[in-house]
């Protein structure tokens, strides 16, 4: 698998990315992300049901984007825990569960604020302006949070585990994941026990609520979306694939103009995808055709 990565890198370095290379035209915007830093560049994409604005978090900060006017506003959030406070926004994971109501996790922007590096599981009821820690302060770094089936599922990069909560995030059951950072995961909308998780170079499935896993495919930088009948996968080179058999096999259906980072699904047909420079592309036909919804 490492050789695959190396071979791909060599092809790109030699200027021969061709059909398999990411369609990066070298004009990536640095407005919302800092491409000079190590990845990840984009940490979360969601939509606030209150006004339909995109919520985008990157390695530069937390942005609220009006999809109609394309206006971008920086959200200056603050986290409070144990009598200490810090700005928060860069490298922030978030999941919108209602109008202005967000779940999140991340790191304090000020390292001298006296807060631990891992903020654990947090909640905001004012669209990200203020955050309070619910649990696991100093213990968890949740890279993705999914609210589904009346539960919370989250990948904790500190433990290397999927955390599952049935009480709103106060307590979690820990389920260890395959070694290597899980960069994305999805839960079957019809089966709370069935999950797919992607590491940097492999795709795994679990049919027992993340207790055990089996590798089902290889692929670089796989990102996932599952809404209704549609299971989508976007690979690092921008290829978009769809599965009709719960992830056992995938067929290519389209492509996006950059490196995929974060999906946001509205229904089986409509999905948004944030690319590495903060561009947000949109499909209305379950991944076949993509148009730009926002360009930084």
């Amino acid at each position, binding site marked *: *698998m*490492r*050789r*695959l*990565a*190396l*071979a791909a*890198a*060599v*092809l790109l*370095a*030699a200027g*021969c990315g061709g059909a398999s290379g990411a369609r990066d035209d070298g004009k990536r915007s640095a407005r919302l992300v800092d491409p000079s830093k*190590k*990845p*990840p560049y984009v940490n979360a994409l969601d939509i606030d049901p209150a006004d339909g604005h995109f919520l985008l978090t990157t*390695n530069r900060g937390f942005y609220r984007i009006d999809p109609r006017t394309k206006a971008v506003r920086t959200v200056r959030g603050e986290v409070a825990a144990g009598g200490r406070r810090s700005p928060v926004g860069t*490298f922030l994971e978030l999941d919108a569960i209602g109008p202005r109501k967000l779940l999140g996790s991340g*790191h304090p922007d000020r390292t001298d604020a006296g807060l631990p*590096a891992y903020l654990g599981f947090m909640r905001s009821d004012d669209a990200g302006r203020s955050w309070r820690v619910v649990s696991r302060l100093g213990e968890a*770094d949740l890279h993705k949070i999914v609210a589904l089936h009346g539960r919370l599922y989250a990948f904790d*990069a*500190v*433990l*290397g585990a999927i955390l599952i909560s049935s009480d709103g995030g106060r307590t979690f059951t820990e*389920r*260890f*994941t*395959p*070694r*290597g*950072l899980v*960069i994305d995961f999805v839960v079957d909308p019809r089966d709370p026990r069935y999950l797919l998780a992607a*590491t*940097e*170079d492999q795709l795994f499935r*679990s*049919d*027992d609520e993340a*207790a*055990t*896993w*089996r*590798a*089902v*495919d*290889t692929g670089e930088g796989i990102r996932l979306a599952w809404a209704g009948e549609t299971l989508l996968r976007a690979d690092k080179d921008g290829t978009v694939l769809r599965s009709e058999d719960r992830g056992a096999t995938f067929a290519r259906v389209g492509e996006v103009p950059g490196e995929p980072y974060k999906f946001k699904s509205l229904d089986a047909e409509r999905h948004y995808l944030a690319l590495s420079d903060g561009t947000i592309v949109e499909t209305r036909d379950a991944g076949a055709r993509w148009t730009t919804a926002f360009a930084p």
Partner: protein
Amino acid sequence: MIVFGHGLVQRADLPIPESFFAWGSAIVLVVSFAALASLWPRPRLERVDWRPLPGGLGRALGSRPVEVACGALGVAAPAVVVWAGFAGPDGPLDNLAPTAILVFFWVGFVFLSVLFGDVFRAVNPWRAIGRLLRLRGRAPYPERLGRWPAAAGLLAFTWIELVALWGEAPRTLVGAVVAYSLLQLAGMARFGVEPWISRAEAFSVYFGLFARLSVFETREGVVGLRPPLGGLPRLEALPGTVAVVCVMIGSVTYDGFSQGRAWRDFAVDLADGFAALGVPLAEAPTVAGTLGLLLGVALVAGFYALGVAGARTVGGGLDADRLRRGFVHTLVPIAMVYAAAHYLTALLFQGQALAYLASDPVGRGWDLFGTASSAIDYSVISQNGTWYAQVGLVVLGHVAALVLAHDRALVLYGQPRLAVRSQYWMLGVMVGFTTLALWLLAQANA
């Protein structure tokens, strides 16, 4: 594995920084060295007590029926794996062969050998077939060949595993197994079963060296007990033995190093350079990887040569060749802990895949053992638990190497004072190997 963690390590916070483990390990070695210098004035490991397992158990385990059963199993299991490799699914994740060969066989037998002695000799398929065919050989095995064929075989296997990545191409992988088997049959037909198996057959030599760390040893068909490490001082340093051990350690060194960002970046430049020189683009990464593997082996050989050259400076009238062959057995525990620490999680995690792969070996929907729907439980060891086990293994292995080297120095030099002085250099080599091992593990784990 590509690092993808915005500067934060994936592993849970350790109670102390990683660098402290390197310092702590180095201190353990220095303290061990001092303790050996003052408390171990006479050689103790050169003559080893051996006694059979009690109650007739040793004789039963070494009996002819057990030998025949092990031989039959040793031929049947690889035959199924080769069949599965050719007839099973194309993908490496669904085919039994890569996991059976690269995890269960290559890694599993390292642990089995250390724990239970030379079990591979009992199930060695080539030995069993050679004996069944009564291959007696037509010529004596050339002394100058020594273990060089085994060194070449191991280098070829590690190239297949780490550079060519035939683990991702099951048919190619089992094709190599068939080719290797034919080579072994030819070797046994020419030189006889035992001379060829004990010196030239790569895996017999490889697992046999690890088995010398075990407390179990078979003598004349009886399984018995000996003290830990007792098998190593009696290792006959045939030509090629140093090369075998350098390949053992050097290949793991390359594997660890190649998982770090430094090598990945360098390898891309290197492959680019080869491509510019006319090497086909598709082959350039393989050429770069081959060079990396050879550099890993050369690094270990050079490090050992440095220790030997240093030991020569203390006097005693020992030439380099005698020192090189005299201390080569001390590298075996290091090779063991390099392999064990590096591949521990592969065995614990991917090894579980055998349950479902073996239950449906050719991917036809069978469920021979009722485990076809099982999966891998990654909670069998935590990430921190893995790190502690790895560090523990590395330190233990290097202390064992120091003990062996000190004991051998007492024999070679005859004077405790000279022996200790010679071991300052060996201590430097051990600290170097320990630091390298921990750094490589940190690279792989980060």
